[in-house]
């Protein structure tokens, strides 16, 4: 069944708006409530390609190096993401550790690798249906990548112990910060519908 190309429904107030083509750096706002509808997507595939690749590199760093290093009166300890999840698993907290594994490791990784593969396909104009499948997966798992929440949790946990521990942030902490910024730019600010618009424009879907 056909769908209506030239109308976009506002997320905030559900008002149908007419879709207009944009110049570079322009953005479209809802006529009723002024919420952002979409931005110009000139060169967006390259942005996605480079940002998701950077995010993947940072993801590797996050998993290799420790996040924080603490020192409590000579007793030292390090926090690394996968070891923390494993620790909880060993103590029998199956649900929490499994859930943490999904939202902190599996989904962030899949999200970025799918976006990367998607951008690669779009840039080279091949594999139309594979690109669609990837985009559909991105649409679903983007809500379940929760490294941003984990980042704030690190800060909260450090505030809980800063009185009696000497804390130093390691490589992964900054890698995590970078990953979150890239994730926010890629899937939180840019509406997912815009990636779909890009997909149909590139492959000339009619």
């Amino acid at each position, binding site marked *: *069944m*056909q*769908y*209506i*190309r030239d*109308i*976009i*429904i506002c*997320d*905030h*107030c*559900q008002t*149908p708006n007419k879709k207009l083509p944009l110049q570079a750096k322009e953005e479209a706002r809802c006529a009723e*409530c002024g919420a952002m509808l979409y931005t110009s997507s000139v060169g967006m595939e390259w942005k996605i390609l480079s940002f998701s690749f950077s995010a993947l590199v940072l993801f590797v760093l996050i998993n290799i190096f420790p996040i*924080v290093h*603490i020192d*409590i009166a000579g*007793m030292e*300890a*390090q*926090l*690394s993401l996968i*070891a*923390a*999840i494993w*620790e*909880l698993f060993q*103590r029998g*907290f199956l*649900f*929490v550790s499994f*859930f*943490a594994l999904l*939202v902190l490791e599996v989904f962030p990784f899949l999200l970025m690798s799918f976006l990367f593969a998607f951008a690669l396909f779009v840039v080279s104009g091949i594999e139309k249906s594979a690109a*669609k499948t990837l*985009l*559909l997966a991105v*649409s*679903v798992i983007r*809500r379940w990548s*929760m490294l941003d*929440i*984990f980042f*704030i*949790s*690190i800060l*909260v*946990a450090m*505030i*809980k*112990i800063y*009185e009696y521990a000497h804390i130093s942030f390691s490589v992964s902490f900054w890698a995590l910060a970078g990953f979150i910024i890239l994730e926010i730019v890629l899937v939180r600010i840019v*509406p*997912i*519908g815009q990636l*779909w618009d890009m997909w*149909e424009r590139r492959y000339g*879907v009619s």
Partner: protein
Amino acid sequence: MEYLKCLYCEATNHKNARYCGRCGQYIALEAKKSLHKSLAYLLAAIIFYIPANIYPVLLTSKFANAQGSTILEGVVAMWQSGDYPVAIIIFTASIFIPLAKFGVLFYLNYTLARCQTQNIAKRVMLYRLIELTGPWSLIDVFVVLILVALIHFKNIAIIPGIGVSSFALMVVLTILSANVLDPRLLGEECEKR
């Protein structure tokens, strides 16, 4: 409204479309199914809210005697030690937001079931708010994860408590409850859906 927005790819479809023309997913409005599912998840979440607040989320063991602390006790302890901003963050994320979510989800479910059509913009805003803030309640779960991994020395250790499982389940269930509640229903008139 004469249009139907796809929840996957945000394409605008005709009102009577069953599958999205762009991404091919099933998108037909199913008011009853959506409400029932949402309410079921919500009730399950409320059930888990009780053990999440009764049982300790973490235990501090000093020289082999362990002392548990629930979420509320954690907030109180932080407030007393003068960490006001963090106490407020934790109180908001772990106690206030879940309760507010229960209230809002009940309200949305109730108004949809009773076919109330006023305050559409306000209710859409409420929906977006709980969808956005929902996962942030997980801060407490991740703090436990971090502290347990960091502090396990010979004479002082932090051990996860049974409350953390209930709490995590409660948060996941409220996220699911908000996810299955179809926001497009809010803009629809009852007889047309």
